[in-house]
C-alpha cells in the first residue's frame, strides 16, 4: 500500500485483544489497510472474523479493559487515533468519522423523536449553535437522505418509522457534521432487498457528491460487488486477501475466498449444483495460533501451513493474499480435492 497524500485512513498492524476468563481472544490480530479520500473499501468475512471489532477499534468504542490494543497505529489524516485521549477522540467521533450500525432500531433511542436525535448529534459538535440552526440542519439532512415530508417526520419517534426509514435517519445523523469517513457496519443486513437497493444507492450518491470515504463492513459478497473499489477479506482476525474488488471475484487467490465465493447459492450455467461447502468452522478466538488459521479447513493444507504463518504477498495488480500455496494465476483449491469432509462441521 503506497503512502500517498490522499490516504485518509491508514491502519497499520492493528491488534485488538480481549482479556477474558477463557484466555486472550485475539479478535483482531495485526491487520493493515488504508482508505483513500472518496474511496469505498470493504471488509468482508463471516461472523467472528473480527470485522466489527476492527470498526469499533477505529472508533475507539471498545471498553478497555477487557479490550486492549497491544500494537498498531490508526492514522487518520496523519493523526494516530490509538494515542488520543477520550476528550480528543470525542471531537473526532461523529464529526470526522461517523458510523452507521446494522440495526437501526437499536441504534436509535426510542424515547426521543428522530429529529431531536439528529439535532443532538449536531449540537454535540457545535455547542454554540442555536436550536433553530440545529433544527434547520436536521431537516436539511433528512431531506438529503430522501425522507419525504421531513418537517413532519422529524417529530416522529423511531417506532413510527419503517426499518428503511430508520436507517435513513441513522445516515442523516452520521452526515450532519460533515464527516470525511463513514464506517458502515452491515448497513443493509437487517433490510429487505428492495430497501437494501435504495440504501446502497443513497450511500453511493452521498459518497460521490461529498467525496466521502466509506469503510463498508459486511458479510455479503453481493454488497461488496456493488459498492467497494477495494476489498479486504478477513478470517480469524487476519486479513487474508486484499485487492481491487473486481480482481477478488475474477481471481480469488486464497482458498477461503474461493470457498466463500463458491458457497453462494444460485444457478451456475443453468443447472442446479450441490453447493460447495467449507468444512469445519472458525476456531474460537482464544485458540488462534501463529500459523495459517485456515489450515484445519483448507484442502491445500500441508505441514508448512500448520507451522508458519504466511505473510500477505503481492501477486500483481495490488492483489495480495496470505497463503503458502496459492499462485498468481490463481490455484483452484477446491477442485484439487473434492469436498468429502463436510460432516464434521
Amino acid at each position, binding site marked *: 500500500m503506497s503512502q500517498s497524500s490522499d490516504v485518509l485512513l491508514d491502519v497499520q498492524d492493528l491488534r485488538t485483544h480481549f482479556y477474558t476468563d477463557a484466555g486472550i481472544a485475539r479478535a483482531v490480530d495485526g491487520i493493515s489497510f488504508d482508505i483513500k479520500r472518496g474511496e469505498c473499501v470493504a471488509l468482508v468475512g463471516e461472523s467472528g472474523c473480527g470485522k466489527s471489532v476492527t470498526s469499533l477499534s477505529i472508533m475507539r468504542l471498545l471498553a478497555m479493559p477487557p479490550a486492549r490494543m497491544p500494537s498498531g497505529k490508526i492514522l487518520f489524516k496523519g493523526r494516530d487515533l490509538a494515542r488520543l485521549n477520550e476528550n480528543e477522540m470525542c471531537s473526532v467521533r461523529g464529526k470526522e468519522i461517523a458510523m452507521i450500525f446494522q440495526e437501526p432500531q437499536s441504534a436509535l433511542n426510542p424515547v426521543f423523536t428522530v429529529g431531536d436525535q439528529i439535532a443532538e448529534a449536531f449540537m454535540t459538535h457545535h455547542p454554540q449553535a442555536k436550536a433553530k440552526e440545529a433544527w434547520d440542519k436536521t431537516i436539511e439532512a433528512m431531506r438529503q437522505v430522501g425522507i419525504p415530508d421531513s418537517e413532519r417526520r422529524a417529530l416522529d419517534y423511531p417506532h413510527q418509522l419503517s426499518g428503511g426509514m430508520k436507517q435513513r435517519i441513522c445516515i442523516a445523523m452520521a452526515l450532519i457534521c460533515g464527516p470525511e469517513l463513514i464506517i458502515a457496519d452491515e448497513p443493509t443486513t437487517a433490510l429487505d432487498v428492495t430497501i*437494501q437497493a435504495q440504501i446502497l444507492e443513497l450511500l453511493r450518491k452521498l459518497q460521490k457528491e461529498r467525496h466521502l470515504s466509506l469503510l463498508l463492513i459486511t458479510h455479503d459478497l453481493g454488497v461488496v*460487488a456493488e459498492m467497494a473499489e477495494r476489498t479486504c477479506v478477513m478470517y480469524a482476525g487476519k486479513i487474508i486477501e486484499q485487492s481491487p474488488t473486481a480482481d477478488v*471475484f475474477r481471481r480469488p487467490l486464497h482458498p477461503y475466498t474461493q*470457498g466463500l465465493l463458491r458457497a453462494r447459492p444460485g*444457478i451456475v450455467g443453468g443447472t442446479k449444483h450441490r453447493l460447495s461447502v467449507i468444512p469445519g*468452522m472458525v476456531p474460537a478466538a482464544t485458540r488462534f495460533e501463529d500459523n495459517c488459521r485456515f489450515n484445519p479447513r483448507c484442502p491445500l493444507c500441508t505441514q508448512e501451513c500448520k507451522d508458519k504463518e504466511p505473510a500477505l504477498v503481492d501477486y500483481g495488480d495490488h492483489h495480495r493474499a496470505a497463503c503458502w500455496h496459492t499462485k498468481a494465476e490463481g490455484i483452484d483449491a477446491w477442485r484439487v480435492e473434492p469436498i468429502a469432509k463436510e460432516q464434521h462441521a
Partner: protein
Amino acid sequence: MSDATPISRGGISATESPAAVATPTGGKTPLLEVRHLTKHFPIKRGLLSSTVGHVKAVTDVSISVNAGETVGLVGESGCGKTTLGRTLLRLIEPTSGDIIFDGVNLAKLSQEELRPYRKAMQIIFQDPYSSLNPRMTVEQIIAEGLVVHGMGGTLRERRLIVQDLLKRVGLAPQAIERYPHEFSGGQRQRIGIARALAVKPRFIVCDEAVSALDVSVQAQIINLLMDLQQEMGISYLFIAHDLSVVEHIAHRVAVMYLGNVVEQADTKDLFSDPRHPYTRALLSAVPKRTPDDAKTRQILGGEPPSPINPPPGCPFEPRCPLRVPACKEKLPDLEQMGAPGHWVRCPLVR
C-alpha cells in the same frame, strides 16, 4: 405472447384454482393443497375490545406442494409469508379457506383430530438461538416430539433414534447430553432439523431456516435439506427473503406482496422470465454476483403499504412503474401467462 386460456377467476370452484392446475406433475394429486386461504387478524381497541379493523396478513392464497417437491415462498418483511406458513400448519387459525393435506381438509378438523397430522407436518424456524429451549438437553429437545406422539418405544430405544438423527444431520451422537448454548448457530440449526425429522414428517415448513447463517454454513444446511429430500422424499415449503437461496433450492416459487400471491411459476421460468412488475423489481434489487456483472437496476421507490388498510385494487399499485388508473379499482386475478404453470396477477403484462 399470451397463449393463456382464460381460466381462473376469483371465486371459482377450488378444483380450477391456480394451485390445482399449476402443478408441474400434471395429474398427480398434490400432497398439500391450500385453497383460498385467508388470515385477517382483528385489531382490538378500547375497554370492550371492539374490533376496529383487520390486519390483512394473508388474502385468498392458493398454493400446492407435491410429494418430494420444494416450493419457495418469497417476499419482503410483512408480506404475510410467515403467517401463511404458520396458518397452513394451523399454528395460527385460518380465517377462511381450505388446507387439504393428503386428501383431508385440516382447516375443518378439531385440535384432537388434528393430532396425527401434526406428526406429518413440521416446521424449522429462522432463529436457531430462540427456537431451542435452553434448559433442555439436545436429547430432550429432539425426543420431545416422539414422546408427545407416543413414538419411539422405550427410553433406550428413543435414545438410539435420537443418536441416529444426530448422525444424519451431521452432528456427533455424543451431543445428546449437551445443551443448546454449547453449539454454534449452524449446529443449532441442525438440531432444529433433527427435531423436525424425529416424527418422520412428510412435509416441513422451513421458515427462513438458513437466513441467520453465514454463507459457508448456509451452504452446509442447504445441502443437508436437499439430501434429506432426496433420501426421504420430504416436501418443503421454503420461506425466504433471499432470492438466490430460493432459486437454488426450490422447484417452484410463489412471490407474495402484501398478503397476495402476485406471481407463481417454475423456478426457472420465474427467474428467467419474471412478469409481474413487483417480481421484476425484486429480482433487479438483488446485488450482482460479481462486479463484472452488467445489471440494469430498477430501484423501487417507497415501501410496502400497511396491511391494516391495504389500498383497494392491486396492492402494488402505489409503487408500480406500470400503473394505470384501472389498477386502483380492482385486484387483478391470477392469469396464466407464458409457460404452463406460470401465473401472474397483473393484466398489464399479459
